[in-house]
């Protein structure tokens, strides 16, 4: 099966899609011109054969472009020549050459993190045309070339352009390709249309409209628009505008190339698309906010992945944990009235309040203060890069103006990108030393009153430099509880009392799934057993773990503080229901309410197609939080509920609508 998939994938890769079933349709479609279809096959087989001989299997398996470039070359040959022994030999030779050039180009491009797109195809096509000027024995089919079938359609120019991508410049081919695109991605289809219109329209400023409309190279507009607007950039209005600008620029480039290369009877094919797209990717990759770092199967999926990351997992913000346990109140927040100003505005001060007071008795002694002596926890995992704890704790009413920061500790994050600084610790209380590794949540010291501190409190800030007193930068807290609500990636306001979360490792054990763990559930409908289903834990080639029922995949991840699902691949299934019922599970033993956002394709039925498309114009459509309530051993929401067992892994029961799945105990 994998081999069959491997064979059909190049067809669909040309359209930036992934489903091999569409590849199969395109494969069949390629026989509209039998020579295109046949020589396409020859090209793929030759490439695989050569790669096997050369022993570089993992390369063509890993990168789709080796095969689709060869495929394009093969189809290109088939477009001009009938199938003959000579054309088959020629195709094989060119396919191998394409493979080699792909390999070479990739070695260079990879340094810039650039895709090689169809550059190899464009180059090899030219080489072949150049060489063919000397070959008289090759007879072109150009005079008797007719498709097996065609029909008249409105928007013929568009469909023909679409078909040209596969060397099938016919209405019927364009229609089928368009339908495939539309079926998988409304965004790509939209981009194809507006790219075509924009390109033709701008081109018509310079040449007659009819010539512009029917130009052979219009498919470049379609490819550029789809590649930039939908694939390499995250779909949204800004990215669409960039795609259109790229299309407009390509108008000139295409004409320039056509004039130049036609002197030597060379085709231009996809060269303008490759050049323009590559240039834009280079530009966007150095800081365009919506550059797509995680290209998924369709633009819709890329977009949802991106939005999930922002709305569900806090995006790229720096996230740290609270440096304490229990309930503390915000004394100063970001940009606050006393000391959190200017360069030092991104900092938090915490105190403990009981009955709205930070101390008992008269508050004249340090021990009167509830915060004094409370443990301070490591807010991140990382390495201690600096610390000091030899300064006295000031008595109340006195501050140390010389050593503002008091006793402090600076921890470097594991990825080395930022530092967390905590101040005013108690004298001699720091339990770690410079160079030590600290684990998030580990006790590293005690709250004190050293430095510029009017009363015992914890000061915390994030900075990009390990130097004490560096400029502060914004950050968010990973999670905290306020009242009975659990908040993720937020910042509490001044005077709010918040509570730190503590990981309950017994829950953690219940979600620590290992490969091939499997769970059999008995399915009841209205309390009558109707079926059984088995979910197993598997891993894909990228090392991502998922549950599968054999057909559908539900991807999950276990982080330090929560278990969550982040992607679903498949149709209607019980796995999809599980995603809805418990998109994330806080590893906390507490009754709390929290919110989460489900990807559009999980919640909506047919209207999801519309929403997915509109999402690219308004990201807020994604932000539809759903409330979940976590009790010790269950999670309840409007969709139903899941329950857990104390001693078994996974879900004990899964209930929604009139259905109930019960874990069958294997013992």
């Amino acid at each position: 099966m994998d081999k069959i998939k491997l064979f059909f994938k190049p067809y669909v890769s040309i359209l930036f899609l992934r489903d091999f079933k569409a590849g199969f349709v395109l494969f069949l479609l390629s026989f509209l011109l039998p020579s295109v279809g046949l020589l396409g096959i020859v090209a793929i087989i030759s490439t695989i054969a050569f790669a096997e001989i050369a022993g570089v299997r993992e390369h063509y398996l890993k990168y789709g472009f080796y095969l689709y470039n060869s495929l394009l070359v093969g189809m290109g040959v088939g477009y001009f020549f009938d199938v003959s022994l000579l054309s088959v030999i020629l195709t094989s030779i060119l396919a191998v050459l394409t493979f080699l050039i792909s390999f070479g180009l990739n070695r260079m491009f990879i340094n810039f993190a650039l895709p090689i797109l169809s550059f190899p195809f464009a180059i090899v096509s030219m080489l072949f045309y150049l060489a063919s000027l000397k070959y008289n024995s090759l007879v072109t089919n150009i005079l008797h070339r007719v498709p097996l079938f065609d029909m008249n359609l409105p928007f013929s120019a568009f469909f023909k352009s679409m078909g040209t991508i596969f060397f099938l410049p016919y209405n019927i081919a364009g229609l089928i390709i368009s339908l495939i695109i539309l079926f998988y991605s409304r965004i790509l289809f939209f981009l194809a249309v507006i790219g075509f219109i924009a390109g033709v329209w701008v081109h018509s400023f310079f040449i007659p409209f009819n010539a512009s409309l029917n130009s052979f190279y219009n498919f470049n507009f379609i490819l550029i628009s789809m590649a930039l607007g939908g694939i390499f950039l995250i779909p949204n209005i800004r990215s669409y505008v960039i795609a259109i600008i790229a299309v407009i620029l390509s108008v000139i480039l295409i004409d320039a190339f056509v004039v130049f290369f036609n002197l030597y009877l060379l085709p231009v094919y996809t060269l303008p698309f490759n050049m323009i797209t590559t240039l834009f990717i280079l530009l966007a990759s150095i800081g365009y906010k919506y550059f797509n770092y995680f290209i998924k199967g369709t633009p819709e999926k890329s977009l949802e992945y991106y939005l999930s990351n922002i709305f569900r997992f806090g995006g790229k913000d720096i996230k740290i944990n609270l440096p304490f346990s229990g309930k503390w109140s915000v004394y100063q927040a970001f940009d606050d009235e006393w000391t959190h100003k200017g360069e030092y505005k991104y900092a938090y001060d915490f105190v403990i309040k009981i009955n709205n007071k930070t101390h008992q008795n008269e508050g004249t002694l340090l021990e009167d203060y509830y915060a004094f002596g409370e443990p301070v926890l490591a807010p991140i995992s990382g390495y201690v890069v600096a610390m000091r704890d030899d300064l006295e704790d000031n008595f109340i009413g006195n501050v140390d103006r010389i050593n503002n920061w008091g006793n402090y500790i600076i921890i470097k994050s594991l990825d080395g990108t930022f530092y967390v600084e905590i101040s005013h610790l108690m004298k001699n209380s720091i339990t770690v030393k410079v160079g030590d590794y600290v684990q998030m949540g580990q006790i590293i010291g005690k709250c004190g009153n050293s430095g510029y501190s009017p009363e015992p409190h914890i000061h915390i800030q994030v900075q990009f430099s390990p130097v004490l007193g560096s400029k502060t930068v914004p950050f968010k807290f990973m999670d905290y509880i306020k009242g009975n609500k659990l908040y993720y990636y937020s910042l509490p306001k001044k005077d709010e009392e918040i509570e730190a979360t503590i990981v309950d490792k017994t829950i953690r054990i219940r979600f620590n799934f290992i490969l091939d763990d499997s769970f059999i559930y008995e399915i009841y409908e209205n309390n009558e057993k109707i079926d059984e289903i088995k979910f197993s834990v598997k891993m894909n080639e990228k090392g991502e773990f998922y549950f599968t029922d054999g057909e559908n995949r539900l991807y999950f991840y276990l982080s330090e503080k929560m278990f969550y699902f982040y992607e679903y691949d498949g149709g209607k299934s019980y796995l999809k229901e599980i995603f809805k019922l418990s998109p994330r599970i806080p590893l906390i033993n507490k009754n709390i309410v929290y919110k989460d956002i489900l990807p559009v394709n999980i919640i909506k039925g047919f209207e999801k197609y519309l929403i997915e498309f509109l999402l690219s114009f308004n990201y807020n459509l994604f932000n539809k939080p759903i409330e979940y309530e976590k009790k010790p051993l269950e999670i309840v929401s409007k969709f139903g509920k899941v329950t857990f067992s104390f001693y078994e892994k996974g879900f004990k029961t899964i209930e929604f609508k009139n259905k109930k799945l019960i874990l069958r105990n294997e013992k």
Partner: protein
Amino acid sequence: MSKKYEKPVIIKVDFTMASKYGSPLKTQKVRSEIDDVNVRDLVEKFGSPLFVYSQRAIENKYNEFKEAFTSRYPDTQFWWSYKTNYLDAICKVFHKLGSKAEVVSEFEYEKARTLGIEGKDIIFNGPYKPKDALKKAVEEGAKIHIDHWYEINDLEEIAKELGKEIPVAIRCNMNTGVYPQWSRFGFNIDNGEAMDAIKRIFEGKKLILTGLHSHIGTFMLSAAAYGAEVRKLIELKNMIEENFGYEIEYIDIGGGFASKNRLKGVYQSPEVIVPSADEYAEAITNAIFEFNKGKLPKLYLETGRALIDEAGYLLTSVWAGKRMPDGKKSYIVDAGVNLLYTAFWYNFDIALDKRYEGLNEPSMINGPLCMNIDVISENIMLPPLNRGSVLSIWPVGAYNVTQSMQFIRYRPRIVLIDKDSNPHLIKEADDLDYVREKEILPEYLK
């Protein structure tokens, strides 16, 4: 108001430099209220001396510990250590909070039963369990923690008499890296005695081992020692489950958590050295997760002192003042070491009922007993006090009431302040009838 006359004295003060607490000559520690109730009002209404318990403090502390443990390890159960404080009202507060009972004598066992605690909710500990008390506890389903070999025999005989197998736990002791090592109770793990006891129980076929218990010491300032204890218990559990097929339902790690009291001879303040509930919980639960194989056990805690000590105050009134030959000021108050057994090892936190005029001077607080040892504080900086000044001594919630003596004076009243700041009398003071109640004067002496 005219200023009171105070006989002038020259005081040698050798630490006049401002310390981190400010000037020792001026700083006064004042605690005028307990849970919003004025201490003078309390003394006026209920008399002096007076033990005062704060229900608010009990509940806060209990919830702090419960939260610290159950948030990390949900299957945690607290068992109120009766010997720490077995006043009915105090026990009831703990039971209402969800705590079960841990007793170490037939008297405590009966007290728990009278308070409505079922046998199954009582852990029966201790080296001395009279046989009929033991039998009754077994019949009522109490959790028996075996302390020695004789008790194995006793229980097997009881099992034979009752014709049923008895679920039991054994108490273990071990080296956890702290001194002194408590090796008097239970069976030693390190030298294999515990294993021998388990073999013995296994071969006797009358008892079923369901739990492991240990209690490594008291006022433990090291959370790591508990980590070491749990590790050894869990390793023993793993070994038992592998070799004997018993399922160890629970491990009971005893008590011993420190309160914010200041031990004599320890320089640092309790805020600095006493581990928090979170520190204990982290060390204990981490060790379970790290070493446990098989099903996770229930975690039992017999925390006493750490839960109640800080909820208890002793109010005492100044009766007289003296100047000692060495120039030190001495105050005689109405509560002494007869009520404050723990005074022998704690330097209490002693606060005034209000601010007083005058500079602090080194003073001594002595109790009312006609005994040289009756010293509550040997050296404390106090301003000049008057007769009737009320001192509040804290923390005294643990052990003092259960260990206080009717010696020379009657024992005082005890008050519990509820969460709405209403004081309730929970124990009357002794009187002559009470003290004489059990006395018998033989006829010939009358």
